[in-house]
């Protein structure tokens, strides 16, 4: 009977030891696991290098540069909302302004803003959706 108890004790002890080591391993792996931080998106400041002198000298250009800078650096970061498009509305507007000028660019930006709904993706063919389910929205109209 004593022998049986001894075997039972050894068995329980072994099982416990095994469970403990498993627990220790899981705690260790969870504690020291490499943590991946989301990369901070570095956003360029709106510029009109490729635009005409009118765009460079226009006071509205400076106002839009400032507004876009403040929105992207301080407001947008804290909203944390998901966008249906690959390029976010503010980034798209910025690129459109750089490419088409302030008036057309801001209208394109506002248009994307009012098009950004949860079901917008269904309007686009599969080729226009990236692997993460976002709509690919380049500013340029590329026919090639």
């Amino acid at each position, binding site marked *: 009977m004593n022998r049986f108890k001894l075997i039972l004790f050894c068995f329980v002890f072994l099982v416990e030891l095994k469970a403990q080591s498993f627990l220790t391993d899981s705690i260790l792996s969870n504690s020291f696991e490499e943590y991946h931080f989301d990369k901070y998106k570095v956003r360029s400041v709106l510029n009109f290098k490729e635009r005409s002198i009118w765009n460079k000298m226009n006071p509205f250009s400076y106002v839009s540069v400032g507004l876009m800078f403040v929105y992207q650096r301080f407001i947008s970061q804290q909203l944390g909302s998901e966008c249906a498009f690959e390029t976010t509305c503010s980034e798209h507007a910025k690129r459109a302004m750089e490419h088409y000028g302030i008036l057309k660019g801001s209208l394109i930006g506002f*248009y994307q803003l009012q098009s950004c709904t949860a079901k917008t993706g269904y309007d686009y063919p599969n080729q226009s959706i990236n692997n993460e389910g976002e709509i690919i929205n380049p500013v340029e109209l590329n026919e090639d």
Partner: protein
Amino acid sequence: MKIKLLMVFLMICFSSYSQINSSFIKHLVLYDLNTEHNSYLNSFSDSTNIDSLDYFKLKFYLLHNKYDTFLDNVSVNPDVLNDSSLLDYSTGHLLKWSISKTKSLIKIDSLFGMNYLSNSLIKKSLLLVGDKTLSADFLPSSLRTHFDEFEKTRNKKAWVGGALATLLPGAGKLYIGRGKSFLGSFMVNIFYGATAYESIHQFGIRNTYSILTTGVFSAFYLSNIYGTIFDLKRIKIEKKKHFLYEVADYQSSGVYLY
């Protein structure tokens, strides 16, 4: 007699040694071993007369999207244009990525090759996309639906979309085929319109809040009109590309680049 036998044996040995191992290339492609793939193909010197080396190199360029190198190689070595299967899958693969590069390949084939692509489905489809008067009867039924979709979009007028967007915000989207975001656009415009109306009604037109709300409403309303016209251009390109992509997919289905 013995010498002849020995010579035959030697020839067999040399020929088997100089051949490219296609199953090894398949392995390299399937396991995405790009550097090894490139090294293996470059391990055969140019002086080695292996027929299949050019084909494997061309497939490698296509697989890794080196289209300019691919076209340069085809121009330098027009013998590869005699291979119809290579032309079939290369045009199919190219068309998925670049329309202009596909046109270049068709041009190279007409200049230096046997003009095999002149009657191909891809060339006919490219012509069909550019010319409204051409008939689409040659298209198989699976592609016909995609072409009908493209044709429907091609016939849409920008001014109609703009006029509809002016009359009812968001209606232009319904016309151009972005129906899923109609409600969002409509609600945004109605909301800002109502806010602007209410603020003008309450505080007058010279009030700062009224100016601000009217400005925001104007921005959304005007962008709804201009965006509809701009988006229609994008949709036309999108549908054209989609149709050509389906043609390319039809042409190159079941073809693997190894």
